[in-house]
């Protein structure tokens, strides 16, 4: 982990389809901080995470990062983060092990065998992803966090489709990451169990207003 890593968000405004949906969001997270984003459906949680990950440009405001080596520039920032979105991003015909090998190569890190063990998918290693149950697929998607080994985790409803054991496992994953000095930003409807250091409640625009 980068020592004294900071992730600061200042006065962020995000638009989707030409409509401003997120206004004036700000937080300043340091090593070991858990940032919880809440808000009703359509409030802009996913959009906000995609701004942080650098996929979407904010309308206003800035996302800055720094470590004790100084500020991290915009291009480098994206490489300090990893986003797990709503979609698992699996390829039906590839097996669990092939997915892991792909990510291990793509992110140039992580010990596949150990990760396979840790996410509990070892017995399913040879199964094509198409045949996984929803929760098994979600576990596989989350294993990317362990293979990419980035200091900042951006999680979009990570516990969806996970069973009780799966949620406990996820909490363990998040807690370990925080304990080792990482930052976790998660958009959730139900708390994942970790105690948030910052809460970002997106404006509870009702669906009716969200036209």
């Amino acid at each position, binding site marked *: 982990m980068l020592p004294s890593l900071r992730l600061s968000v200042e006065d962020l405004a995000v638009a989707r389809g030409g409509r401003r949906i997120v206004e004036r969001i700000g937080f300043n997270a340091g090593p070991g901080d858990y940032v919880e984003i809440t808000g009703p459906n359509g409030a802009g949680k996913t959009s906000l995470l995609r701004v942080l990950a650098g996929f979407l440009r904010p309308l206003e405001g800035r996302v800055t990062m720094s470590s004790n080596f100084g500020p991290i520039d915009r291009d480098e920032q994206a490489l300090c983060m990893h986003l797990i979105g709503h979609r698992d991003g699996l390829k039906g015909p*590839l097996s669990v092990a092939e997915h892991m090998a792909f990510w291990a190569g793509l992110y140039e890190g992580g010990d596949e065998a150990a990760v396979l063990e840790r996410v509990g998918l070892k017995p399913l290693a040879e199964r094509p992803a198409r045949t996984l149950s929803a929760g098994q697929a979600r576990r596989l998607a989350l294993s990317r966090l362990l293979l990419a080994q980035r200091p900042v985790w951006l999680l979009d409803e990570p516990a969806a489709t996970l069973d009780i054991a799966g949620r406990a496992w996820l909490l363990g994953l998040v807690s370990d990451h925080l304990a080792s000095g990482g930052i976790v930003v998660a958009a959730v409807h139900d708390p994942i169990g970790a105690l948030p250091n910052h809460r970002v409640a997106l404006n509870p625009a009702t669906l009716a207003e969200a036209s």
Partner: protein
Amino acid sequence: MNAAVAAVFKRDLTLAWLGGAGAAAPLGFFVGATVLVPLAIGADGKMLALIGPPLLWVSAALAALMTLERVFQADLEDGALDQMLLARAPFEALVLAKGAAAWVAVGGTIALAAAPLALTMQAPLPSLPIIFIDMAIGMIAFFGTGLLAAALAAGVRRAGVLIALLVLPFYAPPIIFGAAATAAAARGEGLFTPPFLLLAGCALAALALGPIGAAAAARLQAE
């Protein structure tokens, strides 16, 4: 970076070969296209020799286009594009790896199949290796420009129109030069004919510009 490029290359290659259809199917498509030609125009050998090479090239271009269409669309829909953008390796290199995998899996098979099929269109035996090389190089041109078009069109509402419109002008020169080179080879004029050199030029241009343009376009799609 090398590991990431290799990983993308390997994954796309595996995906291309998986599903059983891998080896047999592009072959089948191609064999089919060339079987349909004589069926439609009749068994006249002279006529076949004339129309064979261009039609071979048009079907090769179609086969390339068919495989490209979903290269980015699928990755965009299932979130795999996000995963690649989050890698440390330059995205351009990863896109190049994608293109290279498609080229090896599909282009290679088609080039291999093209040679024996040219036989049925009265090309002489010694010209077959030349026809293989023509095809393999032509495929670079198809995949380079096709990659760009696929990236531009992914996620767009009228992707079909876009791909067709974008790709056609770029495909015309390699098809024309390629068909001419193949026809020249069948006439026994060897490999380094003028149309072949022009074809190689198209391929080089596509190789240089395709992946960079495609990467820039795909980055925008990931919003």
